[in-house]
């Protein structure tokens, strides 16, 4: 008889401890996420900021660049990652060694490697153009001085940096598929393409789509690949929304900075809501 109230009391003290232990994170969240976000939205409340934003010739180009970055960059990255994951699951010693090397761009910080790219691509004395001239007597293009070429290089640098991680994710997806399925399929005389189409793809399609969406969110926040390679130039023509917001912030145009970020919300919010549901259900577990 007297265990009942005691258990009840213990339950309460557990909940109290729970709230106490949760408090540090809630505090961090309130102070460094909630308040800044609300403050930012309040700053971005004037319609006038959006008029100014649309009048800035840099803005339309930035939106276009961001969309190309997302659509072309991410799909290219994932098609390559899908293919390479098939290569890296081969059980060979040299392929395993190559995988360790392949993960290096992901493991090391991006600043030194992006700056290495930047210098390599220097039109006058960079490694690429010097080699083109030495070997083929070709005058290489101005990799970072032609706007579209510079932008394409940023996309490639982004892929260089994040391809290893997504390949690794797709490798774990492929390794989870039972090898018996493939054995049965080869006995039945299925071609490689048929094996991919009927076994591999159905097993990893969801993982592939989840990963693509996560990568979209993170690619939107990729400041380094553009800023450190091109600085948004030449002529502010290679900005993406991530660098444009910071550019406005640096020239003390806080309202424009926040407005440009709010403009990305129609794209970001659906993704965030969808992914929070999936992640909360524990369906996927992914880190940068």
């Amino acid at each position: 008889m007297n265990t009942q109230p005691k258990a009840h009391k213990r339950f309460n003290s557990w909940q109290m401890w729970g709230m106490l232990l949760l408090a540090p994170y809630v505090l961090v969240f309130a102070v460094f996420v909630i308040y800044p976000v609300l403050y930012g939205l309040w700053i971005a409340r004037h319609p006038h900021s959006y008029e100014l934003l649309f009048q800035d010739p840099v803005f339309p180009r930035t939106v276009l660049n961001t969309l190309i970055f997302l659509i072309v960059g991410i799909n290219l990255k994932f098609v390559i990652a899908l293919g390479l994951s098939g290569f890296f699951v081969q059980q060979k010693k040299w392929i395993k060694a190559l995988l360790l090397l392949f993960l290096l761009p992901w493991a090391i910080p991006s600043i030194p490697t992006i700056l290495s790219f930047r210098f390599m691509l220097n039109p006058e004395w960079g490694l690429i153009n010097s080699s083109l001239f030495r070997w083929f007597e070709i005058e290489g293009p101005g990799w970072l001085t032609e706007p579209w070429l510079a932008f394409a290089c940023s996309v490639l640098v982004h892929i260089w940096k994040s391809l290893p991680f997504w390949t690794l994710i797709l490798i774990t997806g492929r390794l989870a598929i039972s090898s018996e399925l493939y054995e049965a399929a080869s006995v039945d005389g299925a071609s490689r393409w048929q094996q991919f189409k009927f076994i591999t793809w159905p097993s990893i399609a969801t993982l592939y789509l989840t990963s693509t969406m996560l990568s979209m969110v993170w690619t939107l926040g990729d400041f380094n690949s553009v800023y450190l390679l091109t600085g948004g130039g030449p002529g502010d023509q290679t900005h993406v929304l991530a660098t444009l917001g910071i550019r406005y912030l640096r020239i003390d145009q806080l309202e424009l900075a926040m407005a440009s970020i709010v403009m990305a919300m129609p794209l970001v919010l659906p993704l965030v809501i969808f992914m929070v549901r999936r992640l909360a259900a524990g369906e996927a577990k992914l880190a940068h």
Partner: protein
Amino acid sequence: MRKFFNEASLILIGIPVFLWTVIPIWHLAVLSFSPRDDVTSGTWLPSKFTIQNFEVIVGQKHYYLNHFWQQFGNSLFIALAAGLLTLGISTFAAFAISRLKAPGGNTVMNFALATYLIPAAFLAVPMYKAMGQYGLLNSQWSLILAMVTLASPYAIWVLKQASDKLPFELDEAAIMDGATPMQIFRLVYLPLMKPSLVAIGTYALLLAWNEYLYAFLLLSKDSDVTLAVALGHFLSADDSPWNLLMATGLVYALPPAAIYYAFRNYMVGGLTAGATKG
């Protein structure tokens, strides 16, 4: 014969993958060990192998490197502080949500996940302003706290997933023996969570060490900034000593690379396990 073709086609894929991965890193290393004159000659090997660049760095004998050791220490301090704080805050939170079933725990989890999914460069703008209002700008604590904010959501989520998998019978047995929640936390929970804690601590540490954007926004004094920001400073001049920049970059990149290879089983296992369930 078929086997030979198979091997040949694998090698045909392997070679471009190798070159694609290695060339930028090779270029970084070559310039690091090259004398100044090599910088503009675009070579694949140093004309004369030299460690002079590293002597300049260690001796802080260049305008851009006057604070090298201080900045190295700043990077280390900020990474360690952010790693430990993240670990503490997120372990408490995950324990509270998963084991103590704290009221509102799932709501907090969802908000944390949403934070994880906000592009970092977008959050940087309002956070920079808020840090200014809090009077934290130019203090290293602003960067530490910013990194804790960015690292905690994923940390809490991974730790909660790992914690949900521990059998609840353990808690019940401990309660029967009269254990308090904090005793369960210390004696049951922490020892069992060790592998995940190592992975998450390393994750937060590397995140903070590698961070560029927040560091360059929040810190400005030469003696306060991290190595990442110091590397960015090299870009401000056209005639930057690129061989010194690359050598400093190599020094900066080595610790994360070493940690990554030392902990790679923890990292890859701890951070990607369960991905297949998607």
